[in-house]
């Protein structure tokens, strides 16, 4: 094999004795480009070579725009119309796929190659029962009769861990949770017994706990079915935990490839190191919390209580819950759903309260009550001694919002697409009567500066910004009226891991400089561990554990918290080797918690 990636191939064959030496999938020097009318073609893949062995997982890791999804699409032969493979070959089990006609490809796709898309809800047709959709590949390839197909799908549903397959068969996607939808898609991909699965960010849209079970399922399938999986992900933590081999892609080129252990131990490339630092690999709750304690010491212990919730409760009736919260309704019966019950907590000025729980645990309802967006059924919330009131049209809440601001999860949805950055930042300044036009303009410049945005961005529309930049704009908007409390609703879970790091570092430095109080919610205990002084753990609307971050992270009392800890992507895998740690220590010499601490990620933060 005279390929550029000979070393890795050798390692593969030596590591899998007894298996056939030819890999299941082989890419050799594959280049692909996209043509844009009136311009030179844009190369997206540049001489990529990699193998996927049967019975192993090969992870392709890279940031958005690195070309990793194109790699998956080259294998499935589903490049968009303006894309084409310019060089190299793709061989699946001895059959060359490059150059096949669309007609010939159709016999391969879905039959020998299964595909699992990123967004489970978008991947399913809302009008068809999931069972019918899972049988779609079988039908397309004319396998079996209707009854046989049903039989096979029920079998698969059981295999992918869906309870009560017969009942689920006729359900529609909106009646299922995100994790269940993803299992249905995996069942669909597996239905024709393919030898290769392409999983394009299969868990990015899911909770970490669900992510773990889905990844467990994929690992099991590899074992039991001798599958080869090409796992495309932006999180090196996920890759390190699950994959046998890793290929790190940057700008369409593989910058680092090889056995997982070797890549983690010796990244040997700045980009890979960056990804490694951004992941939660080798996560240690003690380290994260200990690092946070350094900051917490600077906050006086008798710092005044800014946010106080007393016995807050909220119940949704079935009509409301069916309309907007189908999963919660499915879980706890048809009549009423308890979103939050008897939640009490305090947050002191300058500290961060982390609220963690799975989707449907009621954490979003809780912060919405906190911000006066949803009325509470019982209990009260006080901010700075003033009770939080709710009004459907926001009447009489202006005084509250001078003190409380919120940052939403999805920066693509929370910014008006018709406003420029300047207009977005000017709005709260006007609303809270912040001085003259000149003072406001000065404040906008200042806000852009503290959130690390270049000044010339002010007159752009948000559609022109990246996800990270948008989230910075959202943070700048929240800071505009100089609030005391910022409610952060999953502020990083829609972003790439590297961008997550940058946003967390920004939030950390803003808290230090401005003495802000944060209420931070996330489904990922790894993220919560880094930012919180106190942690509240929610499950089905009830607080199951609460206390100082260090205590919860090091001595979890409930199985739920243990599960959340175990679900942090990459936490189970061994951390970076000693030299990586040493390397990190050079960057921040006095910091023992270098692996995940925000101070550490400040090193990757680019000051723009």
């Amino acid at each position, binding site marked *: 094999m005279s390929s550029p990636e000979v070393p890795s191939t050798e390692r593969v064959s030596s590591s899998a004795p007894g298996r056939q030496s030819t890999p299941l999938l082989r890419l050799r020097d594959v280049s692909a480009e*996209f043509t*844009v009318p*009136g*311009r030179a073609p*844009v*190369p*997206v893949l540049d001489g990529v070579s990699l193998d996927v062995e049967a019975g192993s997982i090969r992870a392709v890791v890279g*940031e*958005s*725009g690195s*070309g990793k*999804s194109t790699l998956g699409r080259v294998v499935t032969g589903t490049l*968009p119309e*303006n*894309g084409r493979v310019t060089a190299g070959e793709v061989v699946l089990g001895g059959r060359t796929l490059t150059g096949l006609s669309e007609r010939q490809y159709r016999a391969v796709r879905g039959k020998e190659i299964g595909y699992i898309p990123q967004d489970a809800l978008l991947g399913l047709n809302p009008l068809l029962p999931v069972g019918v959709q899972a049988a779609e590949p079988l039908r397309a390839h004319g396998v079996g009769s209707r009854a046989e197909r049903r039989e096979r799908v029920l079998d698969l549903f059981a295999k992918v861990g869906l309870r009560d397959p017969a009942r689920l068969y006729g359900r529609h996607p909106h009646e299922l949770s995100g994790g269940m939808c993803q299992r249905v898609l995996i069942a669909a991909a597996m239905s024709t017994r393919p030898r290769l699965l392409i999983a394009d960010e299969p868990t990015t849209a899911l909770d970490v706990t669900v992510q773990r079970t889905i990844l467990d399922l994929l690992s099991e399938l590899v074992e039991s079915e001798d599958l080869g999986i090409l796992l495309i992900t932006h999180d090196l933590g996920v890759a390190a935990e699950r994959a046998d081999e890793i290929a790190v892609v*940057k*700008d*369409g080129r593989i910058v680092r490839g090889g056995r997982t252990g070797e890549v983690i131990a010796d990244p040997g490339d700045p980009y890979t190191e*960056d990804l490694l630092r951004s992941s939660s690999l080798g996560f240690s709750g003690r380290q994260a919390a200990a690092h946070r304690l350094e900051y917490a010491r600077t906050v006086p212990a008798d710092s005044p209580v800014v946010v106080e919730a007393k016995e807050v409760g909220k119940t949704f009736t079935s009509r409301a819950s069916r309309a907007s919260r189908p999963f919660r309704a499915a879980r706890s019966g048809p009549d009423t759903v308890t979103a939050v019950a008897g939640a009490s907590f305090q947050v002191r000025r300058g500290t961060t309260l982390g609220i963690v729980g799975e989707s449907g645990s009621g954490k979003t309802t809780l912060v919405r009550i906190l911000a006066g*967006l949803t009325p509470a059924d019982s209990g009260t919330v006080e901010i700075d001694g003033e009770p939080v009131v709710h009004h459907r*049209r*926001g*009447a009489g*809440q*202006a005084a509250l*919002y*001078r003190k*409380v*601001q*919120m940052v*939403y999860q*999805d920066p*693509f*949805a*929370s910014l*008006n697409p018709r406003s420029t950055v300047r207009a977005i930042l000017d*709005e*709260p300044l*006007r*609303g*809270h009567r912040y001085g003259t036009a000149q003072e406001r303009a000065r404040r906008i410049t200042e806000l852009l500066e503290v959130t*690390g*945005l270049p000044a*010339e*961005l002010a007159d752009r529309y948000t*559609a*022109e*910004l*990246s*996800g990270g*930049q948008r989230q*910075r704009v*959202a943070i700048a*908007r929240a800071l505009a*009226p100089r609030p005391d409390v910022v409610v952060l609703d999953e502020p990083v879970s829609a972003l790439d891991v*590297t*961008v997550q790091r*940058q946003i967390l570092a920004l939030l950390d430095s803003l808290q230090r400089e401005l003495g802000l109080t944060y209420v931070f919610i996330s489904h990922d205990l790894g993220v919560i561990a880094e930012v919180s002084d106190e942690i509240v753990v929610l499950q089905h609307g009830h607080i199951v554990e609460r206390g100082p971050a260090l205590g919860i992270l090091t001595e979890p009392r409930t199985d739920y918290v243990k599960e959340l800890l175990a679900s942090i992507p990459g936490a189970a895998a061994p951390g970076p080797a000693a030299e990586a740690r040493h390397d990190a220590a050079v960057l921040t010499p006095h910091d023992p918690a270098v692996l995940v601490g925000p101070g550490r990620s400040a090193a990757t933060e*680019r000051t*723009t």
Partner: protein
Amino acid sequence: MTTLETEGATEAGEAATPMSPSARLRRRVGLRPRPPGHGDRRRWAAPLRSPGLLAAYLWIAVILLAAIHPGLFAAGDPLRQDGSQILLAPGADHLFGTDDFGRDQFTRAVWGTRLSLQAAVVAVAIGLVSGSLIGLVAGALRGRADSILMRIIDIMLAVPSLIVSLAIISALGRGTLNIAVAIGINSTAGFARLMRSEVLKVSNAKYVEASVFAGHGYVRRLFKHVVPNASRSVLAAATMDIGTAILTVAALSFLGLGAPPPTPEWGLLVAEGRTFIGVQWWLSLLPGLVIVLTVLAVYRVGRSFNRGRTRVVA
């Protein structure tokens, strides 16, 4: 490679890289980014690349010019009769031929543009404004106000529009403007429904909820965030509706409810020509073709507004 690197850098280091407005969208849907500035150029070039759209724009320009300054196309008097030139076939002197009073049909068609177009635009404007307001109020207030307004709209939709028009015209009297009012009232229901559904949709957007934190009053937030985002499809629908309105104005004029006979008006021209349709077919057909072409052109332009991210309101 440059585009890719730009993209990577924007995500990783968030360097300030100029990107065309559509580039982010293209990325979200998994397309490659276009080079900077390309999107703007494309918006200009869009009509040029599609000959049908270009022709539609040109035709509308000609029609508008004829409406504003008919003398440019036909210098003659549309009312001048000439007993010696009755019912002539189309030719170099009389492009559309002459009618039974010897009036030049082409001149009449050109001079009739203003009235027909005016009526159509007024009709759509009435429908758009009243419909949008009703839809906005219903969608914003919800609850009982919404139910009441929407039931009224349902009633309006349940009665055949031609009968409503006839009733309104018999109440207001004949005339092109009254036709316009009747059509406007008829199209209110459609606009109200569309606006309401758009308002409901946009009100659910996160950025509308987020705007409450800016401390502004409800009405201001409504007009700043909800109305501009909801009005896009309503305005696109309005452009399409102009075509329909031209047709309806012509139809009602044809029925004799519009301007009285000597006035040149498209629908009336077709109506007057129908007496001779067996022999002098051009009298009805040629003004009819003008109507057809105008309606098609308006539809084509409206369709181009409706597609993609074209900004109807800046």
